[in-house]
């Protein structure tokens, strides 16, 4: 039995029955990481020592009868979550040496549940990107085809889960950064309602859009992670006070009979890869078979989401990233002549080109004389986009779309043209603007054997039924069980630079 091929739920049962110890499990994952990492590069930091120590504690805890469902489960954390004592880079040279003095709330909650941190996964610099190619620490490759991108910005987490280099992972999603890589690597990824999970200690990109979430092998696994990650937090005033339901239980109770799934016609225009269209149609047929009704709906402002997002997100980013000044933490230039020189050289050396582009864009749209024309205008259109969804949810229970218009593209294919890269998120960013929960789950393969993802969007705080609807689909299909074949032997044949 290959232990690294198991789901979180299966692994949890093995640990509970004491058929495997957390130390054995962790060592198996560390071995697999050692074998695959040179080919995939899913991690920025691997913490073998810390992981094995945590595993020993987890085993002791289990012996004492104090285990939770996640005790002893080896995870990868996106390198955007602060981990006390463990380097947290956010994919940037600016934070290459940054060792946080505290844990993010997400990190702390998962640690307290007994989950193990194998390492910190690769990501686009400051989560700005859709391919993990803007990381200062090098690219991550898609385990299904090593010449292709894994999506982004949580591409390291997605690749690690797909390649069996961790049981599950954490990610963050500002415009699709959990769902798009989940789709492109054939895993299940959930972006919860804005505010469902605390953002404390999660390095800020665009604060009104950022949200953490689980990336896993199934909806059932994602529910177990969300259970621990979700909940209000006094350290994040935007975290929601609503009680956290028992997701694992409610997952089993979702009914599709008589429920309505809406298909927004704006998501099925030209530019959709034909195989993606076919896979989504087949998924609809399965939902019909499960008793749901498929309804055609309209989200009329869909096409305005990209320009709206690329005003609001860079505006917030330019403000958030003003803190990197070389004074208190992070990179500092050598021998600054004066304060002006300190700021300019520190920031110019520390940030990569996509981050600089977005800071400049954000600074421009907020600058005197342009604020009304761009930023204010975008905030108004944001409301129109959010109202579209609100209107749609008076007619349907969930909205069903493709997660990405295409399967994984080739490395370097879109790096020269920022606008083309921005369009990779065309089906996901609307959801962030509206603050809604949405997940991506695998629903097919194209002729190149690359995974296709289906996106389900739900009402605010309805993660339980969203996961339930995904779980029912995964009971009927086995797309989520497919894994890249012969990864170990295939990787040996590819020489990496």
């Amino acid at each position: 039995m290959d232990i690294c091929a198991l789901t979180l739920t299966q692994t949890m049962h093995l640990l509970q029955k004491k058929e495997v110890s957390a130390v054995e499990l962790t060592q198996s994952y560390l071995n697999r990481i050692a074998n695959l990492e040179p080919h995939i590069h899913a991690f920025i930091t691997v913490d073998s020592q810390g992981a094995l120590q945590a595993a020993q504690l987890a085993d002791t805890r289990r012996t004492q009868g104090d285990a939770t469902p996640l005790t002893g489960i080896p995870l990868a954390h996106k390198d955007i979550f602060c981990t006390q004592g463990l380097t947290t880079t956010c994919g940037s040279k600016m934070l290459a040496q940054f060792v946080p003095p505290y844990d993010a709330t997400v990190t702390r909650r998962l640690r307290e549940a007994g989950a193990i941190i194998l390492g910190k996964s690769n990501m686009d610099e400051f989560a700005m990107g859709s391919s993990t190619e803007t990381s200062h620490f090098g690219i991550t490759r898609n385990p299904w085809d090593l010449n292709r991108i894994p999506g982004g910005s949580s591409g390291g987490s997605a690749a690690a889960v797909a390649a069996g280099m961790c049981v599950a992972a954490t990610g963050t999603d500002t415009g699709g950064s959990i769902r798009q890589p989940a789709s492109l690597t054939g895993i299940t990824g959930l972006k919860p309602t804005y505010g469902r999970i605390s953002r404390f200690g999660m390095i800020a990109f665009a604060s009104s859009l950022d949200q953490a979430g689980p990336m896993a092998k199934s909806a059932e696994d994602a529910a177990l992670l969300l259970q621990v990650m979700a909940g209000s937090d006094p350290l994040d005033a935007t975290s929601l006070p609503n009680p956290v339901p028992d997701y694992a239980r409610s997952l089993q109770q979702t009914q599709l009979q008589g429920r309505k799934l809406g298909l927004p016609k704006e998501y099925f225009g030209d530019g959709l890869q034909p195989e993606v269209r076919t896979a989504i149609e087949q998924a609809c047929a399965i939902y019909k078979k499960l008793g749901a009704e498929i309804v055609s709906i309209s989200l009329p402002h869909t096409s305005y989401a990209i320009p709206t997002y690329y005003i609001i997100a860079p505006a917030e980013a330019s403000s958030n990233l003003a803190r990197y000044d070389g004074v208190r933490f992070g990179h500092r230039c050598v021998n600054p002549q004066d304060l002006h020189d300190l700021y300019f050289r520190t920031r110019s050396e520390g940030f990569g080109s996509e981050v600089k582009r977005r800071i400049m864009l954000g600074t421009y749209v907020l600058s005197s004389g342009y604020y009304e024309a761009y930023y204010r205008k975008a905030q108004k259109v944001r409301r129109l986009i959010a109202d579209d969804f609100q209107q749609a949810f008076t007619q349907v229970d969930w909205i069903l779309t493709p997660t990405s218009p295409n399967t994984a593209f080739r490395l370097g294919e879109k790096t020269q043209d920022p606008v083309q890269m921005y369009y990779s998120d065309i089906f996901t960013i609307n959801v962030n603007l509206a603050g809604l929960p949405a997940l991506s789950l695998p629903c097919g393969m194209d002729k190149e054997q690359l995974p296709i993802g289906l996106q389900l969007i739900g009402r605010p705080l309805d993660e339980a039924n969203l996961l339930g609807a995904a779980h029912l689909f995964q009971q009927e299909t086995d797309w989520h069980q497919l894994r890249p074949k012969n990864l170990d032997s295939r990787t040996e044949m590819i020489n990496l630079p």
Partner: protein
Amino acid sequence: MPIQVQNVEHVAKLARLEITPEEIHLYTEQLAKILELMDQLNQLPTDSILPMAHALDVELPLRTDTVTHTNQRDLLLTGAPDPESGHFRVPKIIQ
């Protein structure tokens, strides 16, 4: 009028970024393309629309004004690039 080289130079200065002459031209070209995309929003009449600053209409909670995290100066200085005697040291500001 599309964004000009001078605008990009000005914005880079506001953002405290040093940009090389080659980068200036690349960024001007790319930003012009991105801003062109944004001009699509002008097709929409929005005079009567209330701007949306936050994803959900919730009131921010207040807490009592009590100290929860006492002095952590030394811990917070561990990440400082140039700490000295409990301070962050920076180049001379007043000549």
